């Protein structure tokens, strides 16, 4: 039994021990400052490499799953079961002609292809991938995520404006409006969690879920739904993919980009989608906590399950219109997030911390809010169901007079 536990612990801590071992080896012949610097550098490299490499399997995962949703196989030509499709795509994108439109703002146009990808890598720094596996445990972790995450908007707006294309311009304005609007419910919904934790650090948020012995999705189900909905909008995924809107404004902000610059936008989008799922996992699903399996395995399992939900949404839902998108953010999500924040603040003060009673009370209030909103604002039974009129033969022959 003890042997099994030791194996578990070994597998669990394998990456942490690897980094300790590496730094101790380096300490043999380097001064302490240089070791710290080198280790930081190595961590950054590992994160960037992970981010880039994860595209390969996220991409194939998404395309295969969407294929199944649509009653087809998905890519199955290159490599076993088509698993190398992404490599082929990358080669194609790398070898494509790199076009800069003559009337584009050359400097900003080229710069914009790089800008959106930087914040996506920066976010990875504060995510706890497993027990002790965090590159930088900032005490303002979530604030940092919000601040850095909103930088991506600038890159997209730069791209759309510098392209000097009307579709891109429309898309750029849509993007800015959408991202600013959805940032607010996203942050507000998380404040409830932060109230329960009392800290902004991502590591303490995971620890707090250990103290409650429950993931925060049980305590704050409404906040989870709000967070996830606004996060989907934040990363421009269907049904909020208006900035891309392929059927109306063709491809939106990256309409003029080709080859590797286009690939950079795609890269940023995929990593962004991964990181919002990872953040949701950390905040609401207990992060790396879980029985039996090593901590990092739990983290990725939860994150990719959430990613599956994103794919599911993309494969099934139509897109909203721009005015409906704004209405949804300001008239539904923001009030709900505010209500949730208020109720959570009140209940968290009244009930005992870290107890099942407290958790039950929080869950109950959440359910009450949801039911209240459903009854007051969206009474489904009141909605009229429109039907067509069927005109049988006798009726129309009378109308025709024959």
């Amino acid at each position, binding site marked *: 039994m003890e042997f099994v536990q030791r194996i578990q612990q070994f597998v669990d801590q394998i990456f942490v021990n690897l980094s300790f071992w590496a730094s101790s080896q380096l300490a043999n012949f380097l001064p302490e400052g240089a070791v710290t610097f080198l280790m930081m550098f190595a961590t950054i490299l590992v994160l960037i490499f992970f981010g880039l490499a994860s595209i390969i399997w996220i991409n194939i995962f998404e395309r295969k799953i969407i294929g199944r949703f649509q009653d087809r196989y998905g890519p199955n030509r290159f490599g076993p079961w088509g698993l190398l499709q992404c490599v082929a795509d990358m080669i194609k994108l790398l070898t494509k002609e790199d076009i800069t439109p003559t009337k584009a703002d050359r400097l900003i146009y080229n710069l914009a292809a790089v800008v959106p990808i930087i914040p996506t890598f920066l976010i990875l720094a504060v995510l706890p991938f497993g027990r002790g596996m965090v590159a930088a445990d900032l005490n303002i972790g979530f604030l940092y995520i919000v601040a850095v995450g909103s930088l991506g908007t600038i890159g997209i707006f730069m791209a759309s404006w510098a392209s000097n294309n009307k579709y891109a311009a429309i898309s750029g304005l849509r993007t800015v409006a959408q991202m600013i609007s959805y940032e607010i419910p996203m942050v507000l919904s998380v404040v409830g969690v932060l109230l329960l934790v009392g800290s902004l650090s991502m590591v303490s948020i995971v620890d707090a879920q250990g103290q409650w012995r429950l993931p925060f999705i049980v305590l704050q189900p409404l906040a989870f739904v709000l967070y996830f909905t606004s996060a989907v909008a934040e990363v421009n995924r269907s049904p909020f993919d208006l900035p891309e809107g392929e059927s109306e404004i063709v491809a939106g902000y990256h309409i003029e980009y080709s080859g590797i610059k286009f690939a950079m936008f795609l890269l940023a989008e995929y990593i962004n989608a991964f990181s919002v799922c990872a953040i949701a996992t950390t905040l609401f699903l207990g992060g790396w906590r879980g029985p039996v399996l090593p901590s990092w395995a739990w983290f990725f399992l939860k994150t990719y399950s959430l990613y599956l939900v994103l794919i599911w949404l993309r494969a099934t839902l139509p897109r909203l219109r721009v005015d409906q998108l704004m209405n949804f953010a300001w008239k539904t999500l923001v009030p709900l997030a505010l209500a949730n924040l208020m109720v959570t603040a009140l209940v968290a003060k009244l009930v005992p911390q870290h107890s099942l009673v407290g958790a039950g009370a929080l869950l109950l209030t959440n359910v009450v809010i949801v039911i209240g909103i459903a009854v007051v604002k969206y009474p489904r039974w009141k909605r009229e169901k429109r039907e067509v009129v*069927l005109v049988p033969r006798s009726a129309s022959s009378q109308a025709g007079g024959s």
Partner: protein
Amino acid sequence: MTELKTETITVNMGPQHPSTHGVFRLILTLDGETVVDVEPVVGYLHRNHEKIGEYNNWIQNTPFTDRLDYISPMSNEFAYVLAVEKLSEIEPPERAEYIRIIMVELNRIVNHMIVVGFLLNELGCFFTPMMYCVRWRELVMDLYEMAAGSRMMPNYFWIGGVAADLPAAFLPQCKELVAALPGFIDELERLLTDSEIVQMRCKDVGVLPPDVAVAYGCTGPLLRASGVPYDIRRAEPYSIYDRFDFDVVVGTVGDVYDRYLVRIGEMRQSVRILEQALKDLPEGETATPKKKKFMPPEGDVYHRIEAPKGELGFYLVSDGSDHPYRYKIRAPSFVNLQSLPYLCRGHKIADVVVNIGSIDITMGEVDR
């Protein structure tokens, strides 16, 4: 305080655009996201169809009509063949009439499936509903292939009958398909009709009042969705449509959602007609005896049918030779398309493509 100065921008949507159903150009005048004016520009697919039709002989024109509305080739052939038969007073055999009805109603279902699929695509649904619908189109195409030897361009209808009798395997497979169709239509409705986003996007978008619809000359589901119960199968029964029991599906508001509902309803009615036709299908000949050279008498004729997209009419003038003197088509897509600017004004950009999808155009028919 002075008001902010704003400008409208002009956007060329098309000819290369994913949602214009072919090479079709729209000159949009936009005030931000709102559409101020729309000017459709057609003609990119013009290929002299009508003039070439005058040089083909009468029989060669039958497969040529397949190229008009390539989604529903059987209906095009039906309209042309009926016009020529009216001109030369040929009565096709009973069995051929029934086979024609079966083919055309299958065609109507295929067309409406494609419309619903593409409409959802234009709503941003990333191909899933379309793949579901296309799956059923494939099954119908299999039936076409079995009967005619070709899937998209069947050339199955002949003047005075059909090209060949149905193969033995056709009827069981067709009956199986017709029996399974209502289940799929229910599934489609379950997935789409009650969907919150579909309702948000489609309701009260592109409302076409009945008087405006009539003034624009709209026909087909577009007109019926506006509340006018006008179906040529009922108003002026051709072939053997007077023998079948079916309802004309009529909308109440005339918006995109109604057009969608009307098409779903028409698919159900087509299934009803198919069931009756398959039940009553008589034995016998499938074509009148062939002549060495087909030459109808001098004269002119106009015949129209209720094609899936609306009133499809052929105006043919014969000078007694082996080819038509004039070959003119009244294409429903072309006429229905004229209502597009009316539908789009004041809505958002995203609604423009939804309106195009709900009108249901095929550029092969618009430009001819």
